[in-house]
């Protein structure tokens, strides 16, 4: 996808990409001549459609550091209608050390553990308890 500044007849340059976390995407471009900026705002379906190809929107390289990135990003959604507990920063940091292709599954196990016990915030202490009680050493 390219953006053309019609008035200047110049291709606009990529400037910024934003993924606010609500499933939407924002990408800003600026005309190198007149400096006018435009933003492309994609809804969750449009964003998902392109992301599901496994490509990086607005990016130009695919990192090869971790296998199965698509599975890691998109597998294991919580069942519709269930509420998920929130995660504190330290717990999220620990979760992100789990390999991407099983991260979703591991997150769900901890979330289920918290939900079943009425725990609203997953902390590292909650993760430690779950590991002990559920026999999840290594997760």
């Amino acid at each position, binding site marked *: *996808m*390219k953006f*053309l500044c*019609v008035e200047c*007849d110049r*291709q606009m*340059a*990529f400037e910024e990409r934003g993924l606010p976390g609500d*499933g939407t995407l924002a990408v800003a471009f600026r005309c190198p001549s007149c400096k006018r900026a435009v933003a492309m705002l994609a809804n*969750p*379906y449009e964003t*998902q*459609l*392109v992301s*599901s*190809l*496994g*490509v*990086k*929107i*607005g*990016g*130009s390289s*695919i990192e*090869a*550091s*971790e*296998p*199965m*990135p*698509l*599975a890691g*990003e*998109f*597998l*294991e*959604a*919580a*069942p*519709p209608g269930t509420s998920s507990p929130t995660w504190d920063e330290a717990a999220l940091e620990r979760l992100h050390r789990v*390999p991407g*292709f*099983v991260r*979703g*599954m591991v997150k*769900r*196990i901890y979330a289920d553990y918290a939900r079943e016990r009425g725990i609203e915030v997953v902390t590292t202490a909650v993760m430690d308890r779950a590991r002990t009680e559920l026999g999840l050493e*290594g997760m």
Partner: protein
Amino acid sequence: MRTYYDLSDPDRSEVASQVAVLRGRVAQRLARVRHVVAVASGKGGVGKSYVATALAFGLQSRGARVGLLDADLGGPTVARLSNLDRPPLVIVDQAVAPAITPDGVRVFSAEFLAAPGEPVRWRAPQGDEFVWRGSLEAGLLREMLADVAWGELDLLLIDLPPGAGRLADVHDLVAEIEVLAVTIPSAESFDAVQRALTLARERGMRLLGVIENMVGHSCPACGHGAELFPGDAGQQIAEAFDLGLLARLPMAPQQPALDELAAAVARPLGLP
């Protein structure tokens, strides 16, 4: 107003080239695999997974190095048929290690990526799933080919779900794919398998032959035999596509029949 190709500056997203890179990873991973064979049928319930698993074990026991990929994301069964417990998933050489049976068959299934007893779930906007489900499923199939440490194999068998759609997806990813057709004897199975093989032939895939499954049943007590489905779809498909009818398997086949199946499929592949 000018059009896309009129603008000479690079497309920063480079979606097409990124997709090409991802496809290249599949080719790179499968470079040490001699044959990639899709076990396919246009019809569900004909025993594709059973045949694929039996073939994997049969050919491995004949000395071939065999991998088995369960590409049926909606109803994966290969792990159970292979008597595999859910394996711990570990990364080796920037790839996910497959499960390995005691016989040495390398197995990977989407079942390994789902919670026990639950379907494969996607973390994505709910509602209107038809918009993105197809490309995500194709993407997962690509990752199971490209990002699993298959190693050096004589044969990678892919157990496909019913229908022709996933067969086309696999062919997009693996141009040299070969196809084994599985059918039951019934006329409706003939119709469905014919459609799938027509697509396969139109796309230039090599058709290896036909396996007719569930051709009959023998009473273990008195030995009396009876057919389960009327028809001879296996023979009809073989004639329609000028293929060999490689095997006719009864319901619950005994080891000699499975040995014959492996031998019949080994021949066109040049395997031991």
